[in-house]
């Protein structure tokens, strides 16, 4: 059975229905044939009616059912009529059977749904104008599709705590809660942290925590995702944007080597939230809280919007005033300067005096061009990738390796992240043996082996980074790269799955994607005029690097694809799952 992502929130816009199997189509031994709204459907045994209907393009509305959680059967929204059964049945808990005839939208079913909607709304505050969930709320969507459209309730509503700080970054509004228990089941079954439970009975039943044990687990944000209504909200997103203004771009979290599939939600050229996008092969329906906030450095660290030039060749001086220059000329000057400086070091001291430190946070496209331009054309003999490790792999998603593309670096032959190789370069630089250093996407001051003396000893330091790091502050040429969400490309997760990052934001200032900066620098060393797009870069990678053979942006789609089996090995690659 194929697990699908939670259905879209607009129930009246069904997914495109696959063609119905012809009645004569053979049925496998593990399959059954049934009718859903008079349409013949073949489903695997053990599938529920709800899943079979969804696979056939028929959306059965539901609140408590979630494909990643156990079946609770409490919301009763998915009641359907099944021939020969006197009562309506909940589609979420009814397995398909041979010859079953299901009706998901006749008058009886619609009446029941309208009744459930009415029950859910009688004690609901109807505070949609100030609710963050408005626009992606199932109560709203289903009321529009199935509700009476008016209220028969003239009583005082049951009142509950509102704006309750239930723990971490999650705020609870108990009046909006429909007691579907998805959040409880998430904490019991997925995060396995068991903070949440139901208390009280009847219409006074309320989700809560135990004394002294607030909601506090590395995946607490998923309770907000699974909440089908506005009861649980994510503090960093509260009142930040109306969701109908958000543009969701399918991308990948770069917070660790898992590469959780995410939707990057942007509004007015700003990321407002990351939410997990279902991918059963990578992150199922979840992501960690750290990943959820992994875009925040974009708004916390200093950016630089134009290339920065300092001093003349051979000495790091004060920042040059380039304010009178137009952007094109400044970029040309900065790239020419970089090329000249690096060439000068090679000429004076031989290519052995050059080194590069490139980041495993860069994309496959970035790293491929770094290897081609710096390694092959400029002849930099030593290229190191710093590791970024923290904590341990956990039971669910979080990886110790905090870089999204270490496997990509290995597969490209740059080598696995190695603290030792970085340290060697830094020490050689401090000792005066390395005279020219290119740093892409890393801050040297973070690393063991770093000493301030290094900056004094280096003749040339060229930095490409998305933020104005302490290292960029000491570079003769600092080239502004695009930050997360501003560029596209691919990364290879720890499972050796290649996944696409996509663009949701315009670049900040005159920042350029790293791969393009490297391409333009490469042209100064004779790189042929190709690589118009990152897609073109990736096509070249796929053509030349066996680990990527047969892959293309189109083949990767929204959910990525594994590297060809066995192809990802190079000398530096560690085995998958390590």
């Amino acid at each position, binding site marked *: 059975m194929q697990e699908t992502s939670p259905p879209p929130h607009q129930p009246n816009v069904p997914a495109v229905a696959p063609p119905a199997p012809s009645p004569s189509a053979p049925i496998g031994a593990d399959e059954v044939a049934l009718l859903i709204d008079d349409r013949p459907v073949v489903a695997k045994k053990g599938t529920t009616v709800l899943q079979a209907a969804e696979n056939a393009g028929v959306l059965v509305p539901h609140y408590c059912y979630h494909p990643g959680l156990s*079946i609770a*059967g*409490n*919301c*009763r*929204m998915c*009641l359907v009529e099944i021939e020969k059964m*006197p*009562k*309506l049945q*909940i589609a979420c*808990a009814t397995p398909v059977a041979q010859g079953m005839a299901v009706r998901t939208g006749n008058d009886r079913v619609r*009446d*029941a749904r309208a*009744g*459930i909607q*009415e*029950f*859910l709304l*009688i*004690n609901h505050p109807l505070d949609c104008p100030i609710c963050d969930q408005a626009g992606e709320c199932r109560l709203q969507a289903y009321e529009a599709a199935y509700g009476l459209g008016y209220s*028969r*309730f*003239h*009583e*005082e509503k*049951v009142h509950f705590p509102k704006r309750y700080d239930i723990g971490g970054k999650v705020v609870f509004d108990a009046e909006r809660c*429909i*007691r579907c228990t998805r959040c409880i089941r998430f904490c019991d079954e997925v995060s396995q942290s068991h903070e949440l439970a*139901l208390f*009280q*009975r*009847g*219409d*006074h*039943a309320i989700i809560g925590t135990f004394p002294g044990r607030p909601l506090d687990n590395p995946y607490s944000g998923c309770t907000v995702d699974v909440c089908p209504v506005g009861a649980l909200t994510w503090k960093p997103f509260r009142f930040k944007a109306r969701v109908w203004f958000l543009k969701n771009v399918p991308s990948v979290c770069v917070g660790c080597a898992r590469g959780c599939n995410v939707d990057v939600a942007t509004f007015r050229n700003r990321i407002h939230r990351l939410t997990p996008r279902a991918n059963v092969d990578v992150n199922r329906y979840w992501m960690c809280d750290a990943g959820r906030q992994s875009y925040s450095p974009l708004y916390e660290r200093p950016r630089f919007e134009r290339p920065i030039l300092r001093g003349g060749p051979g000495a790091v001086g004060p920042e040059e005033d380039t304010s009178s220059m137009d952007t094109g000329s400044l970029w040309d000057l900065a790239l020419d300067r970089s090329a000249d400086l690096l060439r000068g070091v090679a000429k004076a001291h031989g290519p052995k005096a050059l080194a590069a430190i490139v980041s495993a946070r860069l994309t496959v496209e970035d790293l491929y061009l770094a290897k081609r331009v710096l390694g092959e054309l400029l002849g930099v003999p030593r290229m190191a990738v710093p590791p970024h490790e923290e904590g341990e792999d956990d039971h669910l998603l979080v990886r110790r390796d905090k870089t999204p593309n270490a496997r990509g670096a290995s597969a490209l032959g740059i080598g696995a992240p190695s603290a030792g190789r970085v340290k060697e370069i830094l020490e050689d630089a401090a000792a005066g043996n390395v005279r020219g250093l290119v740093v892409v996407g890393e801050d040297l001051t973070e690393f063991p082996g770093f000493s301030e003396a290094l900056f004094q000893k280096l003749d040339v330091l060229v930095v490409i980074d998305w933020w104005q790091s302490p290292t960029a502050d000491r570079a003769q040429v600092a080239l502004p790269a695009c930050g997360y969400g501003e560029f596209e490309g691919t990364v290879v997760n720890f499972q050796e799955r290649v996944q696409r990052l996509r663009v949701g934001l315009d670049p900040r200032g005159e920042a350029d994607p790293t791969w393009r900066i490297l391409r333009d620098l490469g042209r100064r060393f004779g790189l042929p005029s190709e690589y118009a797009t990152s897609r073109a870069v990736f096509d070249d990678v796929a053509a030349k690097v066996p680990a990527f053979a047969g892959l293309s942006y189109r083949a990767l789609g929204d959910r990525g694809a594994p590297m060809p089996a066995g192809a990802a090995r190079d000398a530096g690659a560690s085995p998958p799952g390590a």
Partner: protein
Amino acid sequence: MAFEPVLTRNIHRPDSGTIEGYLAAGGYQGLRRALKEFSPGQLVEEVKNSGLRGRGGAGFPTGMKWGFLPKTRDKPRYLCVNADESEPGTFKDRLLIEKDPHLVLEGIILSAYAIESSLAFFYIRGEFHEGYRIFQKAVQEARAKGFLGTNILGSGFSLDIIIYRGAGAYICGEETALLESLEGKRGYPRIKPPFPAIVGLYGCPTIINNVETLANVTLIAERGAAWYASIGRPPKNTGPKLFCLSGHVKRPGVFEAPLGVPFLELLNEHAGGMQHSDRPLKAAVPGGSSMKILPASKCDVLMDFDALAAAGTSLGSAGGIVMDTSTCMVTALLNVARFYAHESCGQCTPCREGTGWFVKILSRLERGDGRPEDVGLLTGIASNIEGNTVCPFGEAIAWPVESYVRVFREEFEEHAKRKACPMKTTAVR
């Protein structure tokens, strides 16, 4: 042939409740006989042949229920005794537990033997302090005499009993909520299927039987299926039955009669008739508060599963509630609704939200704040609940609301129209 009370035969003995008294009255003979003469399968057949139907409320044939156990034996089987009697108007199990615990215990041992279970759970309502103490003593006595424990009466059959006290929730009388509670969880009814006979306590095949049902098994083992099946209205309504009568009667209590006894006979002969001679019968609920109400004109019915079903209500737990003409039906229904709103477990939407809504509407009607549309709204809500909930609790509130309003619609409408209770303004009494 005069009816001989058998379920209540020991309750008036001075030594009732003690094992000595029980043995002196011929107790545990059925067990002796069954262990010797019947294989477990034969005992199941015997119970099937007796026609015994469950006394907890649904009236499901007991032998057939036992037959639903899977044939495979890869997991232990459990017998759970539902002693969580909590239906308003019902107090028959309590009588058996307190006055003749060994009759129940013998039935438990027999039933466990029949379903080949070596561990039984006695889930007793938390408020039954006295019953708990008495039953605990009975278990100790039986164990001392060799009726419980290993190799019972040399038969090779072993059984132990765990007594578990509920914490006081009506819903825990629902068999799957009972199992959840027994497992130490919130008393939430489970989604069915799977039924407990397949996946029950701790995931194992489990039979849940009512206290009175099990007491009947003792009688069947003692006197045989043919004797049992001759009582009542065979073939489908056999055996003796305990009927509770409460409300506006002279002598409320538990009365034993054959299934199919006329309601009016119970009322007039057993319960001594109406409490006040000048206030005739207005309505009665024959089966406990969750069942549908009958107006006085329809109370000439036989008290068994099928006759009451034909009359549009149910035998339920046989907790008859009698109301005379002084009763305001809005108040009576409000009383019922308050109970169910309080006891709704809150798991599923229709029951959680609907029960509280009923209370609010009925409270308004009762205090003279009703609107004409409230009457139709009540039945509308009831029909949105009925059949759409996880467990039968939905019907337990939908049925009274639907039936009270249907039968006494004018009275409800009068409340809304006069903005007051007509009973109070027209001085019926």
